[in-house]
């Protein structure tokens, strides 16, 4: 990190309230348990759509989205179950989508890699790497032109910065001083490829200087730190001070796609996992909450509530009907009837 950038790291945020910490904890648990359940259903073949699990990275979605309002936009990619839940997307609708059901959030046309929840500002997540980054810039431009103070957040991986349109987008946002938060979830892999097999240096954050916007490198497994940085970045955006680049360093526990623990890149990855498992963002949050005096039972109750919510979503998904043949050719064009 160059000095110019280090200087832009915000001052430590004021201490978060316990309630806020509990919210963050609950969000992370909802993501974790939803995905563990989905993983099981993939394993047994009930879910067939390719699922890229977010387990291990929950602090990023939870921390960033806690800093947002319903009217703010969130954009994601192939690994967006967490973004969807953290921003307030309906769990049943997502589970049904994974089951390819008509009640799914995308009506059974998208699957895990295409999630949507317009009512909470998620206008779509899609699996083409970096694809929603320019869209996020456009939504921020819309906010500006509409005179709202909505910010637009794009979540993407360390692989996405290799796509040229990442750079084009950051430049546009910086130039027009748009309210965008670029959240790079650096989990050090793009499928089987390690970061340093794809770039000369671990220097993603240095692009902030090149593009002329503030950049902050963060421990992406520290939900409090992510939250604080996102509050700062969202504030900058709302005040018309332009975009921010956040690099959240984290790690995915499972394989690139599918439920299993990732061994396809060999022994090294197994060693890394050993380092990263203890950094579990949920365990850390739990530890911290207990240290501040929250009783374990309170947290256990949250866990149990979430477990029930996930079971309910699963039952809903299973019981829902499939799309019918007559749905096949609808919505190729949008019509007023869709409005």
């Amino acid at each position: 990190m160059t000095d110019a950038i280090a200087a832009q790291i915000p001052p430590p945020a004021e201490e978060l309230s316990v309630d806020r910490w509990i919210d963050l904890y609950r969000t992370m648990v909802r993501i974790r348990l939803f995905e563990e359940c989905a993983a099981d259903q993939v394993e047994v073949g009930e879910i067939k759509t390719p699922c890229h699990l977010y387990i291990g990275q929950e602090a990023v979605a939870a921390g960033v989205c806690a800093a947002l309002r319903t009217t703010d936009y969130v954009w994601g990619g192939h690994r967006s179950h967490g973004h969807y839940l953290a921003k307030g997307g309906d769990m049943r609708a997502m589970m049904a989508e994974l089951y390819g059901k008509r009640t799914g959030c995308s009506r059974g046309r998208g699957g895990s890699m295409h999630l949507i929840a317009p009512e909470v500002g998620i206008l779509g997540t899609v699996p083409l790497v970096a694809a929603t980054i320019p869209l996020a810039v456009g939504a921020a431009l819309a906010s500006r032109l509409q005179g709202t103070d909505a910010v637009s957040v794009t979540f993407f991986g360390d692989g996405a910065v290799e796509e040229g349109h990442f750079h084009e987008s950051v430049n546009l946002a910086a130039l027009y001083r748009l309210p965008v938060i670029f959240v790079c979830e650096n989990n050090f892999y793009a499928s089987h490829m390690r970061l340093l097999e794809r770039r000369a240096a671990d220097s993603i954050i240095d692009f902030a200087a090149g593009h002329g916007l503030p950049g902050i490198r963060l421990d992406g497994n520290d939900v409090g730190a992510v939250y604080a940085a996102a509050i700062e970045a969202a504030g900058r955006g709302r005040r018309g001070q332009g975009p921010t680049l956040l690099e959240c360093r984290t790690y995915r526990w499972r394989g690139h796609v599918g439920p299993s623990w990732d061994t396809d890149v060999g022994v090294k990855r197994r060693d890394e996992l050993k380092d990263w498992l203890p950094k579990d963002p949920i365990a850390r949050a739990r530890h911290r909450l207990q240290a501040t005096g929250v009783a374990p039972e309170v947290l256990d109750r949250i866990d149990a509530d979430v477990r029930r919510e996930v079971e309910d979503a699963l039952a809903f998904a299973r019981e829902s009907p499939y799309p019918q043949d007559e749905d096949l050719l609808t919505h190729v064009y949008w019509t007023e009837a869709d409005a």
Partner: protein
Amino acid sequence: MRTLTYAQAIREAHAQLLATDPRVFLLGQGLWSPWYAGTSLKDIDKEFGRDRILDSPVSENATTGAAIGAAMAGMRPIVFHPRMDFMLLAVDPIVNQAANWSYMFGGQVPVPVVIRAAINRGGEQAAQHSQALQAMFMHIPGLKVVMPSTPYDAKGLLVSAVQDGNPVMYIDDRWLYEDEGEVPEEMYAIPLGRAAVRRSGRDVTIVATSFMAAQAVLAAPRLEGEGIDAELIDLRTLKPWDRETVFASVRKTGRLVVADAAWKTGGAAAEIAAVVAEELFGALRAPVSRVCLPDAPAPMSVPLEQAYYVGTDEIVGAARRVLAH
């Protein structure tokens, strides 16, 4: 009625849309330039301010993607590509994103974006500054594609394109910019998907796109002089195209020329020829004849350009041929 040039008509449509709909804005290269878009956007930034008229970095992908994202967030952007060739850098946002969005998400989020691309060729600009790539986009479900050939349509189709809830590619041709025609002062929309019969005739149907539709208008009197009574159909919208109008005409004439100033193989003309040959098999009295560019990149030197481009002569020749069959 008042006449305007094609470029002025485009400009007027932009201005009226900007004046009447706060959701409309422009993004793209050359918007603050006195010459990039010819006169089709002259001083538009001075009239509507640079907040709504955003000249942009040389970033076709991100500007197009940003327009698409803004459309999803409730705006009605027009993203401008001063040459269609440059737009090839934005095929991902157009084809993978904008075109699929309605379908992938069950119609929940419309993408009312207009992607304006100018065909700008000739003048010894050569292969990378000459392409007419409508066929690539006509193939893509979820997109609409319009190609006006008259000042009247240039205005009305832009209005419809902006008012439609879908991604519409609006392709204009610099070779038409100085053509004059009657254009109402008020804002009006021309329904997408509806062709215009420019001349009715009994002997042969000429279906043409854009510049070739204008050339066909010049070809008709020449054909008439030879005793050939041509019916001229300006397709106007390539996707979805107006089968009914074309079918009705071919049922009458039994003969079809399709003229599209783009490469022949796999071009827009192929689709029209194929559909007519399938659907009106019994009615066709001669094989369909396509008037297109040869399957070669655009050359540079003027003599080669002259040999390369097609126009009235080629339309006349094709009409003669299908009649001689």
